[in-house]
């Protein structure tokens, strides 16, 4: 099983996201995460999908997605040549006696404390998936009450990796 990040540029039509997620579910492909948002040109949406499978499956995923009428462009974001970022919001149980410990871990990771309550902290952390996983591991000694992760967004590096839109 290999992990792959696909970047799709799709027509911003109604139902496009359900067409793509429907394709994944009915053909039995994995979705580890999927994010979507409008591009600089509002006609298009950029979708980043993290998926996994063996080589044959990954090749089929690419072809089947490319076949969808709404899909303008699909490419693989290779780790060596791309940047990925994910946002995580983490609500940790923290009272006066252990609040400082959580704050110092957050500082090391350059995370922001965006809400402080009498019994909780909400931390905002941006990074690739590994960074977020590592941060969550360090919080194991504390009680995580709620966790919201966005899934990754990604872009290819440099001028060579720009998908020009018509």
């Amino acid at each position, binding site marked *: 099983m290999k992990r792959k990040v696909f970047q799709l540029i*799709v*027509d911003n039509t*109604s*139902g496009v996201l*359900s*067409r793509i997620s*429907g394709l994944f579910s*009915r053909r039995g492909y994995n979705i580890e995460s999927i994010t979507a948002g409008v591009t600089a040109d509002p006609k298009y949406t950029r979708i980043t999908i993290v998926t996994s499978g063996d080589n*044959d499956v990954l*090749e*089929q995923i690419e*072809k*089947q997605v*490319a*076949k969808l*009428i*709404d*899909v*303008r462009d699909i490419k693989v974001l290779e780790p060596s040549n791309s940047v990925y970022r994910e946002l995580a919001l983490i609500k940790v149980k923290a009272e006066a006696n252990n609040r400082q410990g959580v704050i110092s871990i957050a500082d090391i990771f350059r995370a922001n404390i965006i809400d402080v309550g009498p019994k909780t902290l909400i931390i905002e952390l941006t990074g690739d998936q590994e960074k977020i996983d590592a941060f969550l591991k360090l919080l194991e000694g504390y009680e995580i009450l709620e966790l919201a992760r966005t899934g990754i967004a990604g872009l290819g590096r440099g001028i060579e990796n720009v998908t020009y839109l*018509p």
Partner: protein
Amino acid sequence: MNGADAIIKCLEEEKVKYVFGYPGVAICPFYNSILSSDIKTVLVRTEQSAAHMASGLARTTGTVGVCAVTSGPGATNLLTGIATAFADSIPLVCITGQVNSSLLGSDVFQEADVTGAAESFVKYSYLIKNVNDIPRIMKEAFHIASTGRKGPVLIDVPIDIQNAVIKNFKYPEEVNMRTYKPTVKGNGMQLKRLVSALEKAKRPLICVGGGVALSNAESELRKFVEKSNIPVVSTMMGIGAMPTEHPLYFGMVGNNGKPYANKAIRECDTLLMVGARVADRAVNQPDFLTDHKVMIHMDVDPAEIGKNIGPTIPIVGDAKAIFEELNKEDINASEPEWLNKLYEYKKELNIKRFPDSKYVDPQEFIEYLSDKMDEDGIYVADVGQNQIWSCAYHVVKKGRFLTSGGMGTMGYSIPAALGAKLANPGKQVIAVCGDGSFQMSMCELATIKQENANVKIIVFKNGYLGMVREYQHFTYKDNYSVVELNDYPDLEALAKAYDFDYFKVTLDKELSRTDKFLASDNPGIMEVNINPMDIVKG
């Protein structure tokens, strides 16, 4: 001009001659507008048949078939027909009425989310939300349905959109779809590799699928085959791409195919697959094909290549365009030894049948029928044992062989035959079904009369769902479950009720009754009594 008028105008621009369908409140504006058009309407008896009729028309004319039904149950009844067309890549534009757009999602009377329901078996679907989008959407729908890998496109039109006023109607001359540009011409480099692989081959073979007929590439294929002297086998959907009795054609492959065709596919060293999906019924061990073989896969849909089989040489493009290109060169792949071997296999390897003299032997019957049919007649096979026998024994000369290969939809033959007949009034059209599949579509006998179409229907009557019975015979040791049909309906009385001719053959020596059945100007039913315990596997 309202939205419904605009849709009709678009259909006229696309030179649509027939719309098959069933009205209901949500599609009534459409059916009201069509009255002032020359487009003919065919009222079917159940919506599924509308899609099959459109399919029969599409397959025999190379144009897009059109059907139009109402919302809710009308639309859901249509689904099996759409799925059948999708599985065989048949170009359809299916228009469904929908409830008022302001009520969408509120579960009102006859509301069904048909675009959602059909999502996995349409090539594309539209839910029209703005009346001014109609010309663009109609243009795109016909373009998508009929180009690249063909298939059904669904257009769901809320009733208020059909009634809304459209300003400045203009049918676009060109499609401008940023995201949809199928590859037609084969890559030059890959074509060179194909030619050199075939020339190097000691035992080359071509396996053709439904893609050949869909791209209208029959004559280009035959020219290529005759020039290069490469033998050909076919999948079920590829039947008719080569005339059955062509010296270089060696029958249908697959678990219901000719043993010598399967032998050819096993023993060839270079295999060119053309417009075939390599699905389980044709090739049950795809890996076997790629071992020790050069495998060349030609398909207009890049996603088919490598889906079930990993080819050595992939070629994406349209079969007609590619064979035209290939025919510019001389390919000499003639290997008399290999051909002679195949002729030997063809002589030696045949399914041995044990006909029971108390009944009509389906093989005898179909061979007789083929012999008596017009050379360019259209033979529509249904699904079941009758289909396998039709595939095995019908001899295609200059006509067409239609069947539901991918989905295996029972009841396909009668409506598809009617669609084919209306589109080809000068041609003989025959539907061949079993008593199970006949009963799934027998309501359309009324439609055949209503259209005054001379469709001939042959019913192999054995009182069983024969194909499943045969499966239970082998797999469940004759524990028959829910496969026995009783003797009803009385086909003679039924024929009378619908004012059809009626003929019956119970023994092989009565086969000549077929002549009169075929010659009559009235549509007819021919009942053929066959052995209920007969099997296709031999």
